[in-house]
């Protein structure tokens, strides 16, 4: 199939999406929740200067954050490669930082770094480094042993291995990470702008959400989507040009499933100590103001020993319960629908050719930036929040599960075909087991994403739960409560991630043991 022929179903899918959007906008014209293509185009034309300036600011912040975050990721991956004993520390610390709630880190960075673009850039960097670090660490280690033997057979060491083999062998994995990181940087910059910036698309989003300007919100969401898709596609094209093949799909992180129960507990304990040491040490080294920059003992006092500790714990507990009510159904619905849609697309390949390119494109969209639209459409209650979380989880799950379903071993499928087994039986006995590792990988990576989605919606619209609590405590300068919330959200996110990773390790041990050996 030529490239243009392969693109035809994708173009048709996008046209259908466009037509559906137009029809929906016409049908719901009275409700004032959907702006059609003409309204959006009209608004963009009328506000080209405003939107152009905002886009330039957000793009610049995202680009600098993208660069800084990825350089940090490459550096960390290099450190973990040269000193393998540091792998657990590097990946664990990176995970904890990845699980920090951007909604809270935004305001904290703003008071620490002052006005200007620095907080948005840092948030963009924080949003990207993990998505690059994990594939790169995997890629640098996934080198076949025989290639390394070749280098060693000429008496060369680790540096020659890195230069001649690992660096190039890891390149496809680096591109796979960069491809996901590009939209993530845009998302990070926008979330940073949500939290008190002066310029940028995020600032406009806040302004138009408050004034209920539907056309403007649709225009900004579509612009953000377009930018993300272009960045995603451009890095994919660059990868194809450089690599001559597609970037791989990364499922398992390095070191997953290694170590027994006791070893894991020791690693977890060491990680907690490391996080506390880095947190405390960095604040003391930078001599940050204690009013804004709370140290571990301050948070401990706020939650356990201080006079308001009971009230703080009560507020946190109530917020966690409120958030969980939205988070869990949305998360599970996103996983279930993503896996279900993937199965349907494999059973109906004609439909897959139409939908898959659209789904891959939509995966690159920073869904959080569409939060105001979804809540506008479905209301500020449970439906809107749960839907947003589900959408955030749905697309990565769909793409990962489709990849997993297609990894089903051809020879085993041939065996089933020789017994004239139908597609359903093949699905049940061969494809579904092959899909499980991908499903669990998506479930793991979706944990922080789902928490980000729910806290953003709570903050922007519903006024409940952890997102609202963090925003409120930031605006009232209640930094004890804000830092306590950061610790709680980060701990929940990290523990849930680790719990899913443990389940995933059990699944991989059975269904994809080769991924455990990387």
């Amino acid at each position, binding site marked *: 199939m030529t490239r243009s022929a392969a693109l035809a179903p994708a173009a048709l899918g996008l046209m259908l999406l466009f037509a559906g959007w137009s029809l929906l906008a016409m049908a719901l014209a009275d409700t004032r929740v959907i702006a059609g293509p003409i309204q959006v185009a009209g608004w963009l034309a009328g506000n080209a200067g405003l939107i152009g300036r905002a886009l330039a600011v957000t793009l610049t912040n995202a680009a600098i954050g993208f660069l800084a975050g990825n350089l940090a990721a490459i550096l960390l991956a290099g450190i973990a490669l040269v000193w393998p004993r540091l792998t657990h520390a590097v990946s664990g610390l990176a995970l904890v930082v990845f699980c920090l709630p951007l909604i809270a880190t935004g305001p904290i960075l703003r008071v620490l770094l002052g006005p200007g673009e620095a907080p948005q850039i840092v948030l963009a960097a924080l949003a990207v480094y993990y998505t690059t670090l994990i594939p790169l660490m995997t890629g640098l280690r996934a080198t076949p042993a025989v290639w390394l033997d*070749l280098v060693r*057979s*000429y*008496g060369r060491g680790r540096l*020659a291995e890195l230069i001649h083999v690992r660096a190039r062998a890891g390149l496809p994995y680096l591109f796979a990470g960069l491809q996901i990181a590009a939209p993530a940087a845009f998302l990070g910059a926008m979330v940073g702008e949500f939290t008190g910036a002066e310029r940028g698309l995020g600032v406009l989003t806040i302004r138009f959400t408050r004034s209920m300007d539907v056309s403007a919100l649709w225009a900004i969401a579509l612009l953000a989507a377009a930018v993300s898709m272009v960045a995603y596609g451009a890095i994919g094209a660059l990868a194809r040009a450089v690599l001559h093949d597609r970037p791989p799909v990364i499922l398992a992180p390095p070191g997953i499933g290694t170590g027994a129960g006791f070893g894991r507990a020791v690693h977890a304990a060491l990680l907690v100590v490391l996080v506390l040491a880095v947190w405390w040490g960095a604040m003391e080294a930078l001599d940050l103001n204690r009013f804004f920059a709370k140290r571990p003992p301050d948070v401990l006092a706020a939650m356990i020993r201080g006079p308001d500790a009971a009230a703080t714990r009560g507020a946190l507990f109530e917020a966690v319960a409120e958030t969980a009510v939205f988070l869990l159904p949305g998360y599970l619905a996103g996983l279930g629908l993503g896996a279900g849609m993937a199965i349907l697309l494999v059973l109906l390949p004609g439909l897959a050719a139409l939908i898959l390119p659209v789904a891959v494109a939509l995966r690159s969209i920073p869904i959080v930036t569409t939060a105001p639209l979804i809540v506008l459409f479905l209301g500020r209650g449970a439906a809107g929040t749960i839907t947003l979380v589900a959408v955030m989880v749905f697309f990565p799950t769909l793409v990962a599960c489709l990849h997993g379903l297609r990894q089903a071993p051809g020879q085993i499928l041939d065996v089933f075909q020789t017994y004239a087994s139908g597609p359903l039986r093949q699905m049940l006995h061969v494809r579904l087991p092959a899909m499980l590792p991908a499903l669990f990988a998506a479930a793991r990576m979706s944990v922080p994403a789902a928490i980000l989605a729910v806290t953003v919606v709570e903050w922007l619209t519903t006024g409940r739960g952890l997102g609202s609590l963090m925003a409120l405590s930031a605006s009232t300068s209640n930094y004890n409560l804000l830092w306590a919330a950061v610790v709680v959200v980060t701990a929940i996110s990290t523990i849930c991630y680790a719990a899913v990773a443990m389940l995933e390790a059990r699944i991989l041990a059975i269904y994809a043991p080769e991924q455990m050996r990387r």
Partner: protein
Amino acid sequence: MPAEPGPRADIVCHRLGKVFAGGIEAVAPVDLTFEAGRTTALIGPSGCGKSTLLRLVAGLEDPTSGQVRIAGLTPAEQRRRGAISVAFQDPSLLPWLTVRGNIALARKLARQSPDPRLVEDLIGLVGLDGFAETRPAALSGGMRQRAAIARALATRPDILLLDEPFGAVDELTRQQLARELPPLWQPRGTTTLLVTHSIHEAVMLADRLVVLSPRPARVVSDIAVPLPVPRPADLAETPEFRALATRASAALALGNARNAPMAAQ
């Protein structure tokens, strides 16, 4: 060849043994000397430890007992001199490099100056004319093996270690490679160790056959191959060739029989 020609590269294994983690003994302590400039075939059943023995000689595995000396130096010292080349069972070509790039890489790794003419000659000698700019994915199994052997020869090594280099190709290609490739290293006096489980291949290529028992590898028989070099394809039809093959086959069977009671235990 390394920057300066080395002394006679006899390979001396003294009480050389290897026990892997978990107590799996791959090579029982052996005393063996592989004479400089000769080709020795290590033959034995699958999994008997012959590849481990080759890796020990290359210094890619550390022995748990004994030692290897090549012209008085350790394998690591010889590797640093660029004196050793290994052609692995898996051609292990880097997929992002062309055939030319893969062959030239060996000289780079061995810290030898680029020699485009030698690379081109080797491409021609292994019959890959017209494929110099082709990446490994577009080559057949036999072509990849040829490229891997050309790469191993690109440094003009004193020691050439071949680990079932024709293992992944069909029988016809295997026989063709076994005929065509030895003239590339034999006239240079390269000390060559060949691991194979094919008796035909061993007799066709080697001056000496070392027959190994099932794991742990022990020397069952040491057979000289006094056949003329180069060896034409029809040599396999001669009584001398058949006699040697029968002798090696009998030694293999003897090794199996000796180890059977141990395996049962």
